[in-house]
């Protein structure tokens, strides 16, 4: 009986979907990672690429610098998205959902278009340079805003703000306004109330937002390739090279697998944290 039920569960559509589109590709990836070269057979398998990944400093260094870029992006995004969401919730009144839609709207347009828009803004003939020129602060357009790590961060922050604003918005919305009133009633000024009540209670939203931004940014390659220049290369770019021009699929899958592992660890941490905090916040 037990076995029969297991089989049925396995055959249910979500299971099949998961197996077909997640487990299977992942297995293929793993099988590639143990090959000698892109076109070698699977046997004899080799761990040489894993070893190379761990022993050649460039890979780990790039992973770390990409993690740093992702981290900075996530922090800045939250710092910008939080006041926006806060304003919507506490001062938006009945218009707040409509205003939220405006905030989210850019996310509905093409991701590539938005990145390219930043290429224009940051470029030597773009808005920033034109503005600085008009102020007389510089003599000629500087392409330096574009093609740098900063450009990558700026662009990614812009892309991610709508996605970060959503969990913050929803968490803030759930905060009982009576708690804010109670705090003020007990003598706490609005600033103190924010620091002691609102901010701690919005932690689940902040954590969600952080991971919403950090995890995808870690593997980013489109934005760095368009606006990153020589300095803004991220981990994802290297993976792309391995798969395309480099014709080194085993290395590419090794790099991807490592990234997947790291992201899984973060996701598990995130799940654990959110569950506990959510429970106490909803009390």
């Amino acid at each position, binding site marked *: 009986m037990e076995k029969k039920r297991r089989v049925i569960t396995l055959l249910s559509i979500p299971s099949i979907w998961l197996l077909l589109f997640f487990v*299977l590709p992942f*297995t293929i990836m793993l099988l590639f990672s143990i090959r000698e070269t892109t076109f070698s057979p699977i046997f004899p398998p080799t761990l040489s690429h894993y070893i190379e990944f761990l022993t050649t400093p460039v890979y780990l*260094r790039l992973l770390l610098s990409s993690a740093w870029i992702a981290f900075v992006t996530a922090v800045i995004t939250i710092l910008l998205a939080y006041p926006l969401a806060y304003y919507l919730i506490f001062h938006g009144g009945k218009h707040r959902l409509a205003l939220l839609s405006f905030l989210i709207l850019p996310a509905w347009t093409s991701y590539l278009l938005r990145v390219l828009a930043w290429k224009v803004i940051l470029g030597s003939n773009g808005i920033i340079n034109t503005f600085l020129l008009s102020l007389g602060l510089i003599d000629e357009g500087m392409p330096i805003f574009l093609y740098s790590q900063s450009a990558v961060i700026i662009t990614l922050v812009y892309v991610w703000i709508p996605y970060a604003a959503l969990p913050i918005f929803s968490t803030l919305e759930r905060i009982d306004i009576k708690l804010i009133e109670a705090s003020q009633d007990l003598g706490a000024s609005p600033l103190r109330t924010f620091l002691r009540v609102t901010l701690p209670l919005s932690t689940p939203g902040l954590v969600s937002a952080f991971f919403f931004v950090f995890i995808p940014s870690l593997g980013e390659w489109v934005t760095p390739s368009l606006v990153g220049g020589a300095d803004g290369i991220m981990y994802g770019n290297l993976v792309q090279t391995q798969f*395309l021009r*480099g*014709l080194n699929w085993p290395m590419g899958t090794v790099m991807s697998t490592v990234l997947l592992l790291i992201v899984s660890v973060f996701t598990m941490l995130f799940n654990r944290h959110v569950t506990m905090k959510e429970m106490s916040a909803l009390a």
Partner: protein
Amino acid sequence: MKLTSVFHLAVVFTLLALMLSACGGAADGEFVILEWAGYESEAYWEPYAEQYPDQPPSYSFFGDDAEAFAKAQSGFEFSVIHPCSSWWQLYVENGLVQPIDTSRLSNFDNLYPDLVALGNFNGQQYFLPWDWGYESMLVRSDLVPEMPTAWADLWDPQYAGHVSIFDSSEVAYVVAALTLDIDPYNASDADSEAIKQKLLELKPNLLNYWVDYTELSQMLAQGDIWIGANAWSDSYAILLDEGVEVEYLQPEEGRLGWVCGFGISANTTGASLDKAYAYLDAVLDTQSMANFGNEYYYGVASEEATKLLDPYIIELMDLEDPVAALNNTFFYQTISEDQRVVIEQIWTEVKAGQ
């Protein structure tokens, strides 16, 4: 779930995965050409169209050589392929192409002997050169404080932040080797290490790596970069057309040159093989090649065809004396798999490194 169920599942999926990863694409019995996107115009193979009316060849396109090679190597069925010289040896080493019986081709003798030699392995002709072009530095003569004269000038700090190079492992490798006076095709381990260091030293001068030649043209036109390497002659033509003040350098170390050509799949036989020879002869036809050269601002590998090129192009490409031009150009030689791996590894570490 019990451990045995998990184990069974794992086995099933491993087998599935093995099967799927071994598959390639396949189109049986047809005449398929693996070609660069855009090269399929009938103007380049008119004689074939006359011989096989209403039977146009099927094309499968690729964007770069690595993609073409990956397709071929993983079993994609094709009849004719058009890769560039660096990869020719790899195709031969992996048994992907068959020797060409040049006696079946009426237009074979027109081809430049030096280029033909590149496609010859172990006394057999595997690839026929068709199109070629320069790679050089494209310079905004009105923006640079001082005109560069050599590949080595890419490293000159006075151009810092205004240089862009092509995102290609091989191109970077060869350029760096030239500036260090190393033969890129006979490099020792110490040589390769030196090349890697040299490329790392270039990074501070770079604004970015360009991937698309329109991107390169745009950056030069806007003045964001002053020197673009390795630019092809079509970019030069485009920018001149837009009225931008650019110069296409003749560096001290010499211009680089790429050449691409046709090969026949090892698996092509029978009627398909006849079609292959007919097609090759058609593209090697003088008029076909001239049509192509005039369209793309590239050189063509045939003496007669070169004479038929537009005078403007002849002047642009310094082709008044084509043989001299070819002799002054450093063409990309073929490389082995081992060499390719080394070059890739260097580029990976350069791009990822600080």
